[in-house]
């Protein structure tokens, strides 16, 4: 190392170059780390969005299925009630007619049969 007048050492050019290089490396590392952090944040955001989207989709599907199931059950219940009502009403009608049924009703049926048979024969 050269010595300045008065005994102070002159900065060595090599040392300066090292320092400069170190500074550049630091700057590069800093920039890279910033990129990495940015990418990681973006990835995390994307993943969060994907998870939320999937959760929303699943919730939507579940809700739609539940609605369909409720609607089907409602329909079945309505049909079954309607069927039962018709069965009960018709059975009651049958019993009522049965109590009042008479030979006259049979005779009417015979007349209807004869008429129909003649109609077909013509």
């Amino acid at each position, binding site marked *: 190392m050269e010595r300045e007048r008065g005994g102070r050492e002159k900065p060595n050019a090599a040392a300066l170059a090292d320092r400069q290089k170190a500074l550049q490396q630091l700057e590069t590392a800093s920039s890279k780390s910033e990129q990495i952090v940015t990418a990681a944040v973006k990835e995390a955001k994307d993943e969060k969005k994907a998870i939320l989207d999937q959760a929303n989709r699943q919730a939507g599907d579940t809700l739609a299925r539940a609605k369909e199931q409720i609607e089907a059950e409602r329909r079945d219940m309505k049909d079954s009630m309607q069927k039962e009502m018709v069965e009960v009403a018709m059975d009651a009608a049958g019993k009522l007619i049965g109590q009042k049924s008479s030979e006259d009703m*049979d005779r009417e049926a015979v007349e209807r049969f004869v008429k129909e048979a003649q109609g077909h024969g013509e």
Partner: protein
Amino acid sequence: MASEIADRYAQALFELALEQNRVREWKDQVQAAAEADEQNPELAAFFYAAKITADEKKEAVRRIYGPGTDKDIVHFLELLIDKGRMPYLREILKEFIAKCNDELGLAEAVVYSARPLQEADLEKIRQALSKKSGRQIELKNRINPKLIAGIKVVMGGNVTDVSMLHSINSMKASLLKGEHA
């Protein structure tokens, strides 16, 4: 449609009846035998049972059918036992009756009703069916209280149902289909 075996045996018995000019008589006798067979499933089980010997079956045939049936028909039934054709009995008898009916210009019909019909009503049905089919009708009245009222007439494959049960079932079906408000 009768099987070939049933048709063959029925045809043989029918030709014998024709030869002896006893179609009407044999038809009635065979009809009585067929009805007995239909009404007594245990009788059919006896005749179809493999463990009962042919002699035991023939003895039963003679005892059951012997008194009121022509001996040739009894012999025919014994022949069916010897040939192991008793499982076809019902079909053979049915086919024989059909052949006799064709020969005699007859047709069988059944009218179901909730209670016995008056003879005058049966006669009206008989005449209507006769006019329609061009045959003389042998009409039976069978009782089915489930019909509630009215009649159901079955002839061959044709069914005419003018019973209350049928009306109620039709109404029930259309209500369930939503055809009525």
